[in-house]
């Protein structure tokens, strides 16, 4: 099988937005994902290192680590192995979200309120920094903000700034991430501590507790004490109580926009990191989780002390590690797997198979943690011999993005794609990046689906929380329209975006078995079930390729095969 048939020199065409950004920031657009990228030679493994992977192994790895394999990506990983791909990705320039919007405003264009609904689709399908953006997507499901909040839905710059924060720290340090998130206007709006004020005896006002509670429950330590392997410590000990929430709430007071006055409502500065105003900050002693911040400590110092204290909690590594494993690899990692990843988090470094180290050696290093997630033996185990409870349901956003990448969509301006404007309903994908219904994301890490095989086995299957009879049909119909390239633009005509390129597949349409071999590697990394294969071939054989309609008949065969495969259990789940 030759994967190198990607058209050489074909640059994915990004929207002006992204191109401008790359120009403006002087970054080089990393175009093709082929093995001929400059600098690849420097990445070739030294003597005696790990060998190449099979195309199916490469494809599976890319399903786990990116938004889905392209033929070029598969070839890259085959030749340079996981280490090579990871190192290439770690060195890739970052996709930017805010800078292009600022540029638009400088040249006098209006930025649409809907930008947040669109920009991430393009990243998922076309961004060269796939691993980084995949991490951004994972982090966005832990440190959640959503434009369904009425204060964020019309503030695209604020949400873009938040995406930049996740992007910048995706391979950085969790402590730095917590810092920037805390000072972000997006989070302050979403969890209601923007202009949160110190207590006032006269009116009975006390500080808003929202962020204090959720930063503990969702962003750092969770609800119960954990062992390093992620299992609850004996005794089901709650990590914090209401008193801790009250104490920590005092810390997040006096935070507002970068302006002279606390109460200023200046649109110009809305997207900038927030600053503190000590006259609105609590001057009381602030006690939580065994830490007492002395009275009269200023806001910034208090915030740093509080974040340091949360960051130091022993729960942090297992709590975050387990969720990252769930976002990339499997819903129920073994305790040993969690422990190994948590140890990488604690150590701040990880040694790749090629012998080189990733990470800065500081506790909380996300690059090291992510490598531990992806390269752990449990992640790399042969899916054919893995236990039946290994793996996960694939979330619909990833199922869709994978299709788009596999079939080399080159133009992914979602603002021109009507069906992508709101995919949160059961009639489409039941989710959309940065648009979850609440700070609890689309699904909970601990969700156990009732009346299911996973539920009967008492294992978590978070992604099943958004799966139902209604949503499944919505997904099938959604994919059907995109696969046949029959989706409307904003004016209702068939648009030019998200157009699949089935060139290789069309050439194989008269040879169903070979066609399916190719699709199997591209979409299901060799795991297409016999009954799926037999059924698809049987259907294809019922679609004659006539002399007059040769092209159309071939298309019909390819569309049918792709739809059947992308709606098969082996594609909709991942293992």
């Amino acid at each position, binding site marked *: 099988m030759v994967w190198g048939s990607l058209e050489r020199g074909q640059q994915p065409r990004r929207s002006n937005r992204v191109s401008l950004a790359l120009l403006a920031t002087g970054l080089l657009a990393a175009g093709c994902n082929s093995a001929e990228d400059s600098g690849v030679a420097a990445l070739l493994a030294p003597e005696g290192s790990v060998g190449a992977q099979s195309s199916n192994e490469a494809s599976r790895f890319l399903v786990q680590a990116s938004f889905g394999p392209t033929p070029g990506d598969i070839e890259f990983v085959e030749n340079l192995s996981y280490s090579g791909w990871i190192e290439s990705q770690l060195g890739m320039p970052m996709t930017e979200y805010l800078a292009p919007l600022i540029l638009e405003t400088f040249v006098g264009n209006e930025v649409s309120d809907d930008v947040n609904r669109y920009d991430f689709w393009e990243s998922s399908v076309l961004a060269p920094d796939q691993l980084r953006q995949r991490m951004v997507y994972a982090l966005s499901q832990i440190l959640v903000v959503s434009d369904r909040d009425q204060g964020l839905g019309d503030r695209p710059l604020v949400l873009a700034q938040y995406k930049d924060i996740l992007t910048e720290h995706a391979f950085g340090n969790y402590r730095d991430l917590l810092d920037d998130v805390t000072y972000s206007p997006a989070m302050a709006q979403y969890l209601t501590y923007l202009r949160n004020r110190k207590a006032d005896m006269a009116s009975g006002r006390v500080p808003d*507790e929202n962020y204090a509670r959720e930063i503990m429950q969702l962003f750092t330590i969770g609800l119960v004490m954990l062992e390093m392997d992620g299992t609850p410590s004996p005794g089901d000990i*709650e990590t914090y109580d209401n008193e801790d929430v009250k104490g920590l709430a005092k810390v997040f007071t006096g935070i507002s926009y970068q302006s002279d006055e606390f109460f200023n409502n200046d649109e110009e500065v809305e997207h900038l990191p927030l600053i503190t105003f000590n006259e609105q900050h609590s001057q009381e002693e602030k006690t939580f989780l065994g830490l007492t911040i002395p009275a009269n400590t200023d806001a910034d110092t208090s915030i740093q002390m509080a974040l340091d204290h949360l960051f130091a909690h022993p729960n942090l590594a297992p709590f975050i590690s387990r969720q990252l494993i769930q976002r990339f690899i499997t819903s129920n990692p073994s305790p040993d797997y969690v422990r190994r990843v948590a140890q990488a988090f604690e150590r701040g470094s990880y040694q790749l198979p090629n012998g080189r180290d990733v990470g800065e050696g500081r506790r909380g290093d996300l690059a090291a943690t992510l490598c531990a997630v992806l390269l752990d033996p449990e992640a790399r185990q042969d899916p054919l011999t893995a236990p039946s409870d290994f793996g996960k*349901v694939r979330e619909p956003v990833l199922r869709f993005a994978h299709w788009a990448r596999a079939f080399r969509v080159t133009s992914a301006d979602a603002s021109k794609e009507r069906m992508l404007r709101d995919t949160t309903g059961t009639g489409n994908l039941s989710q959309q990046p940065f648009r979850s219904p609440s700070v609890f994301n689309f699904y909970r890490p601990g969700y156990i689906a009732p009346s299911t095989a996973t539920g009967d086995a008492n294992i978590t299957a978070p992604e099943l929380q958004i799966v139902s009879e209604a949503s499944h049909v919505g997904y099938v119909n959604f994919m059907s329209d995109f696969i046949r390239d029959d989706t409307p633009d904003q004016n209702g005509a068939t648009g030019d975006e998200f157009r699949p390129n089935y060139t290789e597949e069309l050439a194989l349409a008269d040879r169903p078995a070979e066609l399916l071999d190719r699709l199997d590697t591209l979409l299901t990394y060799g795991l297409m079930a016999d009954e799926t294969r037999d059924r698809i071939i049987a259907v294809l054989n019922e679609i004659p390729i006539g002399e007059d309609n040769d092209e*159309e008949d071939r298309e*019909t065969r390819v569309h049918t095969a792709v739809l059947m495969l992308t709606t098969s259990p082996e594609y909709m*789940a991942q293992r």
Partner: protein
Amino acid sequence: MKLSRRHILRGGAAMAGAGFLPRLGFDAARAADTNGYRALVCVFFKGGMDGHDLLLPYDETSYNRYREIRAPLMSSYDRNEAGARRTRNELLELSPANAGDFGSRRFALPPEMAGLHELFTDGHAAIVANTGPLLETINRTSFRDRSALRPPRLGSHNDQQSTWMALAPEGQRFGWGGLFADAQIAANANEVRAFTAISVAGNEVFLSGQDVQQYQVTGRGANTVQELTRPQLLGSGRNSERAQQLLDEHFRASGTTRSNLFERDMATVARRSIEINTLFNDSTVNAPPLLTPFPDSRLGGQLQSIAQVIDSRTILGAKRQIFFASIGGFDTHSNQANSLPGRQREISEAISAFYAATEEMGVAQDVTLFTASDFGRTLTVNGDGTDHGWGGHQFVVGGGVNGGRIFGDVPPAEVDHDWDSGRGRLIPTTSIEQFAAPLGRWFGLNESEILSTLPLLNQFDPAPVFI
């Protein structure tokens, strides 16, 4: 291929995986009443609806004290550009038949809830006050000194939602709604068990039972796979019956066996999505639309869908049904004066329309709607909002309800009283079990079934008899 109901029934048992677990003791021979039609409708407010801003103190002394304690929030209301107010003379005073139970204290609803107020006055709605999770009776003293057991994970949204629905924090497999449905299924109440537990608001543990599996509907009937109903795909193969057949088999995952549990679950949902959606649509396609107008809101749409399903109960062969609806946006840590009143209006209008629809269908006596929420909120405010609480006030609406009454205890709108766990967070005086038991009995469960589904019930005093 149309499936007979019998086929679904057989298939349903296999799909439910019920063989893995010992049953909870539902015995068809002793099961209670399956006569007539009964439906329960749970309307869940996600985020924690502020009970203190739902059932307001109305007598002057209490009202003035309330205003004092909530001064910053009352300012927001006074200045409210959107028009929502909480001035005393704009509140809707309640005149409960049991007013004497509260001495000189009186209560009112917000001006946005005229519809619910009318239902209360007409005797079709009751309020069950200060309800919430309890492991045992507890008060301020035994809360503080921890001499009484506290329910776990208080203040955590997902865990309290789960506790309301399934009596324990997140991770539960069965909700009490699902278990109620199981009891009726064991008594063979319905011809097709697939339409026993229906959600119009996503997967929730409330409707999960051992046998029953919740079914999700949207407002426009059940989704169908367009390739099966209006095939675009097959092109020159369109005339091939075999191709159509194979496609159909593929989409319904016929004969699919998988060892991986996640693949297996996706195959199951594929199967159900074709089989049950088709049966549902075939059954309801000719149902004439209801005449009662519903408001064009999220809850209005959900309750309208439920009403339409109820209207098709005979053709669906259902005599006992449990429904779940839900809207969010109640976590009013900030901007409460601008966000809560609009939602309260939405609730009131939607529930009023729903009640009117049940009258239109002649089933007003047979349908009981009740509300629930993660928790109530603090009495003291954080500026322009409130923080997570515990006990909250719920409505029960229906022709069979012992309406026009406030059941349970309403603690004073004060701080530092005996049921204040801090900042006016109410310690519940009615437990979830006490709230659920009368609903279960009305639904047709016998006492042993009630105790199976609500094991802690006997910890508490007899439930308030609101239905």
